[in-house]
């Protein structure tokens, strides 16, 4: 099984993007950082006890699924949209959603466009092999306007082309748009159009067929979310708590770990790496960071968001 393989290998092979600031990008020392990367590290910590026991495999929109299907990677955490066909036809198992997103458009400010429906005849940079490519076709068709698609392999190249003016519009998930814009020399010269043309629930995924492995990934993600809901942070992991769910989560009560083939402290280790969901969000893409994304839909359900983890029981 995948779990045994990963344990035997001693590292987790995790597929990430070739570089989206805040989500997954090697820093100056070549250490991968980011919101998606944190999921990988949490799973590695839960399974192997070491959040650094991860081999990051950069994938493009095109190569990611083959990498996962062929077993080159064990887990794909690469702002991938959970869709029907990917789940069923491509035979993958989405273990949850770590970012609720939607497709948006970025245009230079001086283009003077205020809505996507004004883009009739524009040249649009898209990443091939993504849902955004299909959504884009649908959007323009249903609005009965034309466009000129410029298919591009990776996000960074799309940005290069966009900045060079080779396309007027750059479209992808709004989170990625925001993240990439934050890296521009003059972020203010570009605007995200208000239109959100699709639902893009982004989450980690694994191969079909190995449900145990899927469970581990799913519940590690849930642990991060639950921890935030329960107020468990990387700082207070060792503090006594009267909340039985907290104790179950951190392995002080019951033996949830054994049910997924891990030891009792798995979730605690996962949380120790980067903290709970909220901490991860805040440190990588939150409003304090250059990316500056608001929680929005990604707030806890209690706060009016969509994050809702099943209970640890």
């Amino acid at each position, binding site marked *: 099984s995948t779990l045994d393989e990963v344990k035997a290998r001693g590292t987790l092979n995790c597929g990430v993007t070739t570089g989206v600031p805040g989500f997954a990008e090697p820093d100056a020392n070549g250490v991968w950082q980011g919101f998606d990367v944190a999921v990988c590290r949490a799973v590695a910590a839960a399974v192997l006890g070491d959040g650094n026991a991860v081999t990051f495999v950069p994938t493009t*929109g*095109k190569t990611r*699924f*083959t990498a996962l*299907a062929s077993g080159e990677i064990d887990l794909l955490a690469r702002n991938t949209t959970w869709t029907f066909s990917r789940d069923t*036809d*491509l*035979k993958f198992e989405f273990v949850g959603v770590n970012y609720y997103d939607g497709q948006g458009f970025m245009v*230079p400010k*001086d*283009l*003077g466009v205020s809505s996507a429906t004004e*883009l*009739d*005849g*524009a*040249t649009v940079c898209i990443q*091939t*092999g993504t849902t955004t*490519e*299909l959504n*884009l*076709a*649908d959007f*323009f*068709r249903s609005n009965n306007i034309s*466009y*000129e*698609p*410029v*298919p*591009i*392999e990776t996000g960074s190249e799309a940005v290069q*082309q966009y900045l*060079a*003016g*080779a*396309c*007027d519009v750059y479209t992808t998930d709004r989170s990625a748009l925001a993240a990439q814009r934050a890296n521009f020399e003059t972020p203010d010269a570009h605007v995200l159009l208000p239109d959100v043309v699709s639902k893009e629930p982004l989450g980690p995924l694994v*191969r*079909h*067929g190995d449900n145990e492995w899927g469970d581990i990934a799913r519940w590690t993600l849930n642990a991060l979310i639950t921890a935030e809901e329960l107020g468990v942070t990387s700082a207070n992991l060792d503090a006594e708590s009267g909340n039985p769910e907290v104790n179950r989560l951190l392995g002080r009560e019951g033996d949830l770990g054994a049910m997924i083939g891990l030891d009792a402290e798995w979730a605690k280790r996962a949380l120790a790496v980067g903290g709970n969901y909220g901490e991860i969000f805040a440190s990588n893409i939150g409003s304090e960071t250059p990316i500056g994304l608001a929680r929005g839909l990604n707030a806890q359900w209690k706060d009016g968001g969509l994050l809702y983890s099943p209970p640890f029981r």
Partner: protein
Amino acid sequence: MTTLSDPPKSDFRIGMLLSDTRYRSYTFQFIALMAIILSVSYLVSNLLANLDRLGQDLSYEFLGAPAGYDINQQPIPYNSQDTHLRATVVGAMNTLIVAFLACVTATIFGVIAGVLRLSNNWIISKLMSVYVEIFRNIPVLIWLIIIFTITANVFAPIAEFRIPRDGSDPARTLIFGVMAFTNQGVFVPRLTFDAGGMFVFWTFIASIIGIFVYKSYVKKHLFATGKELPFWLPALAILVVPTLVMYLVLGRPVGVQLPEMGRFRFEGGLQLRTSFIALWFALSIYTGAFIAENVRAGILAISKGQTEAAAALGIRPGRIMSLVVLPQALRVIIPPLISQYLNITKNSSLAIAVGYMDLTGTLGGITLNQTGRAIECVLLLMLFYLTISLLISLFMNWYNNSVKLKER
């Protein structure tokens, strides 16, 4: 006297499978066959096991499903609701278009460079050597990307052609009022054909054929009477006059559509996208360097004696070229030239690096990706290129046999 009969049969012993030349080769082939069957079945069983494990199957049904994505360059009408099969066909046509055009321009570059490299002008021949060596020794992918980068970053931003919102004049306008080099592509005028337009078009084609007919008539006339008719002027007339007459008679059914600035880019006219230009140009200039070498080698292969003999007969240099040197040099040049064409076709698959939607971009790229049908798509992709290669090789064999010099 004697008749052919079977050689005497000796008794068969099992050891003869290895020691007897007659059976040995069967033994080996049998072993080889077994080995092949074993390894193929091993691979196939792995394949089946893997497909089973992933819950996938092999099927080409996806080709009938809507593709869902758009393609910017469409030689035949296509929209995102058409099938993957149609997208594949569009891609294949795009491959053939760019390959064909690149073959034409690469030949032009190659012939020019190859001939100039032999020029007695030192600077020109050295410049051509530099061109050939530089382009041959750097990967075509790098050239492709460099040229793509140039078109995207050196050509003027299309924004400068747009009419500013305050209605003032744009920073740049069409060159000669007809074309524009922008970072989103080159925009050139396009011919539009009204009802009778096709007649004009076919007249034009017929005129081109007519020039060749006239050329052979000139030759025939020379052979028959020894009088050489003028060629260039009548040829020009044949090219222009009938088309012009047709055009006027039919009431000017052919128009020129100039590119005109729309909200975002030029509308009307013909757009050559940067990806297309980069691919076309990179393939041409890279392969042109190789062709230049072939051309040079072909011309050098014709000994100086041939030229001298012709000169001694009083033939003028231009005629020496066309009557003596070229017919021989072409025999040397064309076979490697055709394999360069093959290379162009294969290298055109690099389109994917610049986002030109050829077959590798559609079938091998987006379709493969959106459907996840890797094996099926790659197989189909290979089949396409293989077919083209085989066709070209067949042609080459035919050509080689038909021009072989007769020898004793």
